[in-house]
């Protein structure tokens, strides 16, 4: 009986020390994770400062900037138009089905337009652009990094931030609000089409209520948000590309991280921007 107690005690001590070691290792790993994330955040802020400094201190690179606007803005239109249009359509159908129960059919117009201008337009456009453009930026810059093209550029006295990051940054900050405006328009227009021509809502009431409850503030709020989203996507994708690890695996990881981190940043930042804008630009 005494032996059993001794062995039981030893087993308990061993189990406790094992558990304690496990906890210590987990804490250590968490600590390293937090330090790594903070380091990355710091590096990203330094890159942002470098981009701002270069934008205002160096001669503008119009050719590269227009080229990026074409690739980032013009070539993203199809994706954005389809996203905006079908979101507006499905939103109109869903709201109609609910509002029809309480005889508020004509509220579909303002609900669709306010949702498209304040939230759905900027967020969905940013998410689509993060997937399409953010991935392309990270993959292109990552490949340039691992094939020594960035080193080659630096060796010729040209800063990659100046030649590569700034044009993409400007193109996204200008291009994303324009794409967002396009998504808003097609979302509202397709919502109108579905509401009036498919659900049978009276056209005059639909439009009248939409104008009555949608203001320029709603549009401005969405467009200003999209400027911030463009900045976040450009910064994160550029950072991930510039810091891609060696080899195809490194570029692949950088591309995935650029899309995931950009998308999450857009969603999280949207909440905080909404709270801030509700104070600055009240509904």
């Amino acid at each position: 009986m005494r032996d059993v107690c001794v062995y039981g005690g030893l087993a308990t001590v061993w189990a406790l020390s094992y558990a304690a070691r496990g906890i210590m290792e987990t804490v250590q790993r968490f600590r390293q994770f937090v330090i790594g994330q903070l380091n990355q955040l710091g590096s990203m802020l330094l890159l942002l400062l470098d981009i701002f400094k270069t934008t205002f201190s160096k001669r503008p690179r119009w050719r590269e900037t227009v080229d990026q606007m074409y690739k980032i803005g013009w070539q993203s239109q199809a994706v954005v138009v389809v996203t905006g249009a079908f979101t507006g359509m499905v939103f109109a159908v869903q709201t109609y089905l609910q509002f029809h129960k309480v005889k508020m059919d004509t509220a579909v117009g303002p609900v669709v337009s306010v949702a498209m201008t304040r939230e759905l337009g900027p967020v969905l456009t940013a998410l689509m652009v993060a997937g399409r453009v953010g991935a392309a930026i990270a993959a292109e810059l990552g490949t340039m990094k691992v094939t020594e093209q960035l080193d080659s550029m630096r060796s010729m006295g040209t800063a990659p931030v100046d030649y590569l990051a700034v044009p993409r940054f400007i193109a996204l900050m200008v291009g994303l609000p324009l794409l967002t405006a396009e998504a808003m328009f097609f979302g509202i227009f397709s919502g109108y089409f579905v509401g009036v021509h498919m659900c049978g809502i009276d056209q005059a009431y639909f439009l009248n209520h939409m104008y009555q409850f949608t203001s320029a503030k709603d549009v401005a709020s969405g467009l200003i948000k999209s400027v911030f989203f463009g900045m976040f996507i450009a910064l994160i994708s550029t950072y991930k590309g510039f810091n891609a690890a060696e080899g195809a695996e490194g570029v692949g990881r950088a591309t995935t991280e650029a899309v995931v981190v950009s998308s999450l940043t857009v969603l999280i930042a949207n909440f905080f921007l909404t709270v801030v804008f509700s104070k600055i630009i009240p509904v």
Partner: protein
Amino acid sequence: MIQIQDLHKSFDGAEVLRGVDFEIHDGETLVIIGRSGGGKSVLLKHLCGLLRPDAGRVIVDGVDIDPLSESELTPIRKKFGVLFQGGALFDSMTVFENVAFPLREERKLEEPEITRRVEQALTVVDLLKAKDKKPAELSGGMRKRAALARACVANPKYILYDEPTTGLDPVLADHINDLVLQTRDQLHVTSLAVTHDMTSAYKIADRIAMLHDGRIHAVGTPKEIQATTDPIVRQFIMGTAEIQTEVQRGTETVS
């Protein structure tokens, strides 16, 4: 003149350079030889400030470049032309645009003059017909030649060659060697090449230095290196797997 003094560099705790000292005199071609992964390319990247040393100094024309910021390094870097191992041509540009890049970035020359100089450089490397092609459409040898044209087009004072003949067949490698010599004679440049191709080293070098164990192990003219009895140098230039001493060769080996 470029002076390297007591250069140290580590990556993730692994010490690659452990106190490298040497000088490159004006007008000479110095070839650094050494085993793969021995830090030759790392050393080369320190010369134009692409990498920063952990300790030691890199002095280019009397200027210690380590304390300089990226923007302060720009005038120093413009003295260099660098031929990277894989060419490092910009994928999104044609051969012509790649070679024109350093001239356009200087923003001093008019476009007709840039065109003239780029075409001249492409003629030297026999790539004028491929000027509108993208790097992906070129063979390995053509990429190296295009990269050589880009490294030389702005008439740099120093040219750095990172493995200029690696991955090329012997005929093409010899053609690249000839181009390196031609560049030296025409532009009177000072050159540093890192390679493990001894045929190339003997042909283009005024002096050869061997990087071994993170330090410069031996320096000499090609003839001196060929005649050396140093076992480490002999092992490298003979390409044998085991170190052999002059006395022991044929009887026993020292590993």
